[in-house]
């Protein structure tokens, strides 16, 4: 009796496990298949897209879609612009917010609390709110259609989250380390740059990843502040490309893949760190 019951229980457990795995696999396929489909799509020509096997592998891998997208479709320019804007934004966010986060959390001055509150308020502001005023300011300063039109707002809107994340890391550093540095004759700058900053490297990479994702994928500012193709980033470029290559879907697919691949590569390389940074971005209380 006991044995039969045990066997039965094991059996239901086993079936349960299989059903569970089945469910998880179906979800996984749903999450990943559209991207695989896009990959196939980007390697096909029009006739195959319109008439061939919609879901299947391409008959012939048309890598020329990629070279065409890169050269004729200006994707190389868009790509360069995205890299430039994103890289400069990340560097500036890291410099500014680490200095400010440090001064707020570890240095002694009267207004530090107020400054922190003010900056954290920024996390609640939707970028919609600033769109038109920024457009007017950039227009009056003649900065529309320059890289700065994107870099400055990206940095400004990246600061609150970055200060928050870095601030909480600085808070976790034992005071004694800083004090020892000072006793050894370090000034505040040396202490900060050579002792403290290296200690918060994980937080810096978290902020860098977070900033990368938001800048690389941003659309609203990019579409409003830039209309010259030579300064457009990938997100906007993709939209104008769809307009130009309206009948050549394979090339558009290639462009979309070129936009996506860097993110996926970074994710697969830094998987844990990326997930951590997304969690850190959320748990702001």
């Amino acid at each position, binding site marked *: 009796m006991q044995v039969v019951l045990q066997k039965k229980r094991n059996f239901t457990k086993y079936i349960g496990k299989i059903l569970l795995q089945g469910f998880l696999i179906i979800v996984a396929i749903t999450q990943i298949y*559209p991207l695989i489909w896009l990959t196939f799509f980007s390697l096909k020509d029009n006739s195959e897209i319109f008439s061939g096997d919609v879901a299947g592998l391409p008959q012939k891998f048309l890598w020329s879609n990629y070279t065409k997208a890169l050269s004729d479709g200006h994707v190389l320019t868009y790509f360069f612009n995205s890299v430039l804007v994103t890289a400069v934004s990340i560097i500036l966010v890291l410099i500014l917010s680490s200095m400010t986060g440090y001064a707020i959390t570890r240095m002694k001055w009267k207004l530090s609390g107020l400054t922190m509150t003010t900056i954290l308020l*920024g996390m609640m502001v939707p970028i919609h709110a600033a769109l*038109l005023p920024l457009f007017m300011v950039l227009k009056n300063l003649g900065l529309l259609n320059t890289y700065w039109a994107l870099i400055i707002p990206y940095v400004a809107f990246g600061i*609150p989250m970055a200060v928050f994340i870095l601030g909480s890391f600085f808070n976790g550093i034992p005071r004694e380390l800083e004090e020892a540095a000072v006793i050894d004759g370090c000034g505040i700058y040396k202490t900060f740059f050579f002792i403290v900053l290296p200690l918060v490297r994980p937080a810096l990479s978290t902020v860098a990843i977070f900033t990368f994702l938001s800048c690389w994928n941003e659309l609203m500012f990019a579409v409003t502040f830039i209309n010259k193709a030579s300064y457009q980033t990938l997100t906007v470029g993709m939209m104008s490309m769809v307009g130009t290559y309206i009948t050549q879907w394979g090339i558009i697919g290639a462009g979309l893949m070129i936009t996506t691949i860097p993110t996926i590569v970074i994710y697969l390389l830094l998987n844990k760190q990326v997930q951590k940074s997304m*969690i850190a971005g959320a748990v702001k209380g």
Partner: protein
Amino acid sequence: MNSVFSNKTAITIFVLPTLLIFCGIVLVPIFVSSYYSLLDWNGVGKGTFVGLNNYAEMFNDPRVLNSIKNSLLFAAASIFIQLPLSLLLALILASNVKGEGFYRTVYFIPVLISTVVIAQLWSKIYNADYGLLNSLLESIGLSHLAQDWLGQKHTALVASFIPTLWQYVGYHMLLMYAGAKSISNDIIEAAKIDGASRIRTVFSITLPLMRPILKVCLIFSVIGAFKVFDLIYVLTNGGPFFTTEVPSTLMYTTIFDTYRYGYGSAISVFIILECLVFTVIINKYFKTE
């Protein structure tokens, strides 16, 4: 020692540039937007001050009301479809299932992809002539269901919600997973020893302890729904016949296509207030302390 850590020059160098750029680009524009919203202005010359007229017009404008309704539907769909699904996945993955790390990694991939790409991708999936969806339906013998998903009034809104669901289910899953994982194993073990079933443990132990993260997810999905822009702008631009229009895309067209700067600013101020009000409400009714 103290003189080092209260070095006024250093503090100024560390804080001032950040504060200037932050206030100039993030804070001040909100007030400027609020001011613009009181004007009748086409961006050229000086606007005329019209007080709260724009706001009064907004609440009588069927197009505005319709866009608000759509964003509320988006929020409702996120709360009642996306969050429960994410929660289910998070709880399964957090229960030491085989392949935990792999699934977590795969589910999260769409979160990282630019919404522009996602919108283009899904517009191809929905395409009436060669789209993936219709050909899938055909292959399983449901070809009579095949249609132009984004082009028709009665399917467009649902069709534009699904990519959001697809994109962010992994994000909420990850947050909830992190929340579930942070619960001490001792508590779960104790419940097991007390004879609580798995389901019972989830409802009496895990979920109550996950309240803080559930609140964050709730706030994110509601605010995300109010702010949704990229996806709609690329996928349908509010069409067909405004059936997918949301406040942010309406704000955008009002400002940059019809040059009603004051009216568009009123809509943008409305979006901020809406987000703020709902955050406060959720925080209040979802007290975590």
